[in-house]
Every structure is written in structure tokens, then in C-alpha cells.
């Protein structure tokens, strides 16, 4: 973990509020693993005050790739940056995904939840059978599709709520069928909370290991502020930033 000044090499808008940044951050790139995230300082001034957590999309030392949605003030400021601009990045953070050698792995990505799973697929696709379910509201929410197709996935299932790409509907609507047919050993998921909550219910009957990468509001990203607590089924609170962001899906107390 280190705090380094990253230099933007390439900045790309993918339409629909989605952005890609390629950043030279040699220290972080040297040790980033799939599932890790970074905390990015968006402003030299004190508004916004906090850094923003972003997953690592890919890592090709000395570069890391970020993929994000410009939603609020912080991410909009990030979206305005271009090549030559620099920004402070703290990372790699969090617990990352285990590799699961030899296991059949199903990746389940909702919207920007693709980030850590893309990274996982890029690193692990050669080594084991990988399947990916990828869903979004519509075509515009799935701008990484071309890159995903270039990965060596054993199976790719696309869902869009409006039917503009792949199957029409929420990805959870097609999930059971895919699981029954492909019989994965492990699922790795990332996406909006309602999606993960639904997954927790849908996957319960199957004898698999299910890991999910969570989001939470973060003050620090390295375990000191206690701001990122998430409640587990035992009622205990865990820190998403350093005890996670990857947790067993069934350990989390999902909102009902």
C-alpha cells in the first residue's frame, strides 16, 4: 500500500457518463491484484474533502486502468482530467479475490461492477474456465463489451433491462438457468446492492462458494476511520475497506 502521484497517460469518455483513465502509477501497479481498489484524491482543494474509492480495471505495470461513472461531484471532477494531469492515488487496497486454481468460476457483474471482475478475468482467463454474466440498464451501460469479448471467456451472457443488448431483463432473471447449466464451483459478483441482495437469495440453494465485492462510503480506505462498516448476518459490523471489499455473499445482512 502506498500513496503515489499518478500521471494520466490516457483519458477516454465512453459515453453515458462512463470514463476510462490509464494512469502511470508504478508502485501500485506493481502489486495490484484483482479485487483491489484505490482511493483517488479528486481535488487539491478541500471540496470535495475525501478521496473516492475506485476499483482497478486492469493493471499493466507501470499503468493501472480505472473505469468509472461520473455521478456526483467527485467523479465529475475526475472525468474532467486529461493526459498530463496528475492525481494522488492510494493503493492497492482491500483483500482482493482468491485465485481459485482449477475451479470453474462464474463472474456476475452489474453495471460498473464489472471493474474487479474484468480485472480477474484478464488475469485468470487463461488458467481456468471462466463465465461472465454482465448486465446493465441498456447498451450505454455496457460500454466495455468489446474489450470483454477479447477476453478468453468460456461463456458470456449479456442482459439489458431495456433489451437493447443481449437478453432483455435483469441479469438475475437468467441467473438460475445459467448456474444449472454451467455448474460453477465459485461465483464472484459485484454490482448494485439490490442485485447482490437478490443474488444472495438466488444462489442459496446451490452448493457453491459465492464471493461479492461491496461498495460503502469510505473516509480513508485503509482501515482507520471505521466509516465503511457493513452489517453481517451475525449482527457484527465489518469494515469494507480492509476486511473487504470481498466478502462471502451469505455473510452480509442484505436489506430486505
Amino acid at each position: 500500500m502506498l500513496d503515489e502521484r499518478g500521471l494520466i497517460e490516457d483519458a477516454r469518455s465512453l459515453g453515458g457518463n462512463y470514463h476510462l483513465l490509464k494512469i502511470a502509477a508504478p508502485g501500485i501497479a506493481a502489486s495490484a491484484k484483482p479485487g483491489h481498489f484505490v482511493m483517488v484524491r479528486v481535488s487539491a482543494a478541500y471540496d470535495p474533502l475525501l478521496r473516492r474509492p475506485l476499483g482497478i480495471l486492469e493493471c499493466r505495470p507501470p499503468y493501472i486502468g480505472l473505469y468509472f461513472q461520473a455521478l456526483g461531484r467527485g467523479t465529475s471532477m475526475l472525468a474532467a482530467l486529461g493526459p498530463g494531469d496528475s492525481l494522488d492515488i492510494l493503493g492497492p487496497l482491500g483483500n482482493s479475490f482468491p485465485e481459485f486454481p482449477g475451479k470453474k468460476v462464474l463472474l456476475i457483474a452489474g453495471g460498473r461492477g464489472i471493474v474487479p471482475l474484468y480485472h480477474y478475468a484478464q488475469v485468470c482467463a487463461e488458467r481456468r474456465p471462466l463465465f461472465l454474466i454482465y448486465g446493465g440498464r441498456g447498451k450505454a451501460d455496457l460500454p466495455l463489451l468489446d474489450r470483454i469479448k477479447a477476453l478468453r471467456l468460456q461463456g458470456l451472457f449479456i442482459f439489458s433491462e431495456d433489451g437493447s443488448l443481449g437478453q432483455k431483463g435483469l441479469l438475475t432473471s437468467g441467473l438460475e438457468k445459467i448456474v444449472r447449466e454451467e455448474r460453477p464451483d465459485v461465483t464472484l459478483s459485484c454490482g448494485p446492492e439490490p442485485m447482490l441482495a437478490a443474488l444472495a437469495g438466488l444462489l442459496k440453494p446451490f452448493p457453491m462458494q459465492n464471493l461479492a465485492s461491496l461498495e460503502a462510503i469510505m473516509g480513508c480506505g485503509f482501515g482507520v476511520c471505521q466509516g465503511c462498516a457493513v452489517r453481517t448476518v451475525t449482527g457484527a459490523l465489518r469494515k469494507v475497506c480492509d476486511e473487504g471489499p470481498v466478502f462471502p455473499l451469505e455473510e452480509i445482512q442484505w436489506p430486505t
Partner: protein
Amino acid sequence: MADLSVDLGFRTLKSPLIAASGTFGYGEEFLPFFDLDILGGVIMKGIFREPRPGNPPPRLHETPAGLLNSIGLAGPGSEKLQESIRRLRARTPVPIIVNVCGEDDDEFVAVAETFSAMAEVAMLELNISCPNVRQGGACPAQDAGHTARLVGRVKERIRKPLIVKLSPNVGDIVGVALAAQDAGADALSLVNTFLGLAVDIDARRPVFANIYAGLSGPAIKPLALRLVREVCRKAYVPVIGIGGISSGRDVLEYILVGAAAVQIGTINFREPAAALRITNEIEAEMERLKIGNLSEIRGQLQT
């Protein structure tokens, strides 16, 4: 080279810069970023006797140049903290300060006794000012009488210097400060967070389950600096200034109004090596202003 050491009367610190409770974890987390021994001290996250889960999420809400928190003093309890302190001591000689909490006066006393007995602990800071324990933000530091009673009881049972941490959410902070001093506080630290509110207009609810939360960060600096000056003018025990410090200049402002030392809080979240940067900035400002030791300017604000 500027000499950063400051004298609290009962103890000399290597630097005026102390890491504030609740913003520096248990110290260890910052070891990757800089040598903690440059600091005047490290204050552990506030501790109760038993483990506490703290408040339900969300616990943080960003505001312009500020941070509202409603952590609710989540923590592992006294026993686990003792282990953390031993671990930290094994890694660095920096003075370790324990931020003592309690649901009632008896618990404050018990926790204080526990850590007073630990050789690794340099001082205690009595956190009678956390706005996130009770709904509505009430705390002992809002009442001079309660403050005096509690400080008196704690002082009787400990053999370490006691810093008493004050709340800005009072009408007369000087009255509470003097009550703490007269009851035996060796030093005063201020301020804890300011009571604030954020509303989720979609849910038509407060953002936080506890309704109010504590505001910290650069936004509060002008307010905290004013309160620190008021207390410094009346108290004879050393005052540790806290609130929105994010630069060496800020530190010198606090020293000029009379603070003997300062704490940095929220800035540690934004910038894990903030303490190192600020230490360098203090040195640079001292050299620029030809100040050999901060005692030369402490309380020297010309009005």
C-alpha cells in the same frame, strides 16, 4: 534547523503535532506511510471497557470542506486495545495516548485505571465530548459540574497525566475548561466535533440513524481556533488545539493563540502522510519566520 519540541509542563514532546483520536486507528495502520516517531504523540481511537459495534451505517457524510461522522465509538474494548498498544510500542517509541470513554462515570474511571496501569501509555485523554454516543449529542462536557466531578474522580485513580477533551457544543466552553482544570486536568484538548445534521431529501430522513453527527475538517477551523483562543486566555494548564488543521500555517495559528500543541484529525483520512507533510511545513514556516522554538510565539497574538 528549527527545534519542534514543545513543553507541556509535565512532559516535553518532540513535536507539537499529535494524531487525533478516531482518525489514526491504532497507529499501526500509518507505519507504511511515515516514521511515527516524528510525532508528539499518537492518540488511540476512543475506548470503552467492552467491545462496541458502533452506530449502523451510513456513518460518514461529506460536506463542503467538512466531514460529518457518526461512528459511535466503535471499538474492540479495553483488553484488545492493550494488545494493540503493545504491538505499536514494539514498532515505535512515539508517545501513546489513550482516549478514554465511558457510558457512565464509573466506566470512565475503570477504563482510565486500566490504561493508567500500562507502562506503554504516556498519558490519557478523557473523551467527555463525543457527540455520537447519545441521540441528540449530549455528553458530560456540556456541563461544568459533571465535568468537574468526573475529572476529579478519574484523577484520584490514575498516575498518568490527564488531558481532558472538550466539546464545542456548549454555551460557555471557558467555564467547562476551568472546571476541568480546577478538578485536576493536566491539560485540555479542544475541540471535539461540532454537532451537525444532514438530511436525505429522497428518504425524508436524517442521513444518520442517530440524527445528529459530528462535523470535522477544514470547514471548522475558524470556529475551533476562536474557541481555543478563548480557553487559552483563561486557563493556565496547557491547551492542545484541534480542529481543521491541514497545514503548517494552521499549526502556527493555533500556537499563536496560545495552544501548546495541536492534534490533526480528518486530514489523516485524505492524506495518510499528512503528519509528515505538516511537520515539514511547520519547520519551513519556522525557518521563514526565524522562530527557533514555538515557545517564542506561543500565545503571542498581538491584539
